[in-house]
């Protein structure tokens, strides 16, 4: 089974360790951490092919885990008489756990805070006279707003599918099912008509919902697999070009 890899909201090494602690239902302590060291290393092993940079971050924690494991395996030297202090890793994990819990509470607060609606009409309409305003909008807000609209559209679409009385108006927006084979044909056709190649953005520009964007993306991967097109992306989040 494929394991989850996220592009940017990547789960860091502490998150991985934290999830393992949760999954194994163990306490955050040296003794219990040593019991899951193998699982962590196994996960890391699968991961390292993907991104060396990330793997190195994992390595630091792996080293600490191995140290803890070794310490647990070695016979205790009782003559030392010194209280064992928690390792740095245990401390970090406890702190991580603390903020995880806090963020869960904050999520409830956010829910609560979202229940109060301010007035929503523009100042123009409220005052009823022309007022000189210094508009403060930034381009990213526009982009976010549009993405937000797209996101809620695809949610709405899911609801509408269950609704027998879907109004015919949706046809206008081409909300019918989009098939990968149709999309691949469309992409090849489009590619054949331009000499300079296309970008992913060109292809999703007129998408009506997120599903269509997902299908477009899958179609590109499909075409690349069949060696019908070449795709190139310079870095994460940069545009994908097709040839």
């Amino acid at each position, binding site marked *: 089974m*494929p394991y*989850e*890899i*996220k*592009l*940017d*909201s990547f789960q860091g090494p502490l998150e991985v360790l934290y999830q393992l602690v949760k999954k194994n239902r163990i306490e955050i302590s040296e003794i219990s951490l040593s019991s899951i060291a193998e699982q962590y290393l196994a996960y890391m092993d699968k991961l390292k092919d993907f991104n060396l940079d990330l793997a190195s971050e994992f390595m630091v924690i792996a080293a600490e885990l191995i140290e803890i494991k070794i310490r647990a395996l070695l016979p205790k030297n009782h003559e030392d008489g010194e209280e064992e202090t928690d390792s740095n890793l245990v401390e970090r994990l406890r702190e991580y756990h603390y903020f995880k819990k806090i963020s869960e509470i904050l999520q409830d607060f956010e829910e609560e805070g979202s229940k109060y*609606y*301010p*007035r*929503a*009409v*523009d*100042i*123009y*309409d*409220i*005052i*009823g*006279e*022309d*007022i*000189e*305003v*210094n*508009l*403060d*909008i*930034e*381009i*990213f*807000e*526009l*982009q*976010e*707003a*549009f*993405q*937000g*609209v*797209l*996101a809620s*559209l695809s949610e*709405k679409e899911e609801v509408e599918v269950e609704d027998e009385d879907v109004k015919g*108006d*949706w046809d*206008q*927006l081409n909300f019918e099912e989009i098939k990968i084979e149709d999309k691949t044909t469309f992409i090849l056709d489009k590619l054949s008509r331009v000499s300079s190649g296309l970008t992913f*953005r060109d292809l*999703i*520009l*007129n998408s009506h919902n*997120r599903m269509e*964007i*997902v299908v477009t*993306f*899958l179609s590109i991967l499909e075409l690349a697999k069949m060696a019908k097109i070449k795709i190139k992306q310079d870095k994460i*989040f940069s*545009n994908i070009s097709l040839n």
Partner: protein
Amino acid sequence: MKKTFQAEIESLIFSAEEPVSAADLSRLLEISKSEVKKIIKEISDYYQGDSHGFYLKEYSSGFLFVTKAEFFSLIRDMHNKKVTKLTQAALETLAIIAYKQPITRAEIEEIRGVKAEKTLLTLSKYSLIEEIGRKDTLGNPIVYGTTDDFLQHFDLQDLTKLPELSFEELEIPSNDIENTLFR
């Protein structure tokens, strides 16, 4: 005491982006239209009182709370020193027009699921959008597009310079596109 729905109606009109009609309120609250009208009359009379700074104004398409004309200069003084943000409704509508122009009002309303009449008026007043023609379909509806002022405001050379859509931003719900793709 009998429940009158005055508070519900107040909250709905207060938070609306466009005027709210008696018919809408009647449908939503499942009370008769005459009942709604009676309550609206009460609310309206109530805010006319001297101790209130705003009142319920009737438009052809419904009701909105607006400030009283006598306080205009006071309000202007407060707003003059501040920068104003677009409301969420205006921002979304502008975004839809920017990315999908030319587009009709009906299409915008379909996408956002709410009326857009006043919002379009506001954006036109800010010179951010304009009518750019008519669509060649039934009724020849007006189609909207963004203006040169729009490009200037965002310091864009042309519309192709609009930022690309990415799906790794804060507001996308957790079952976001990356998960869908890579699970």
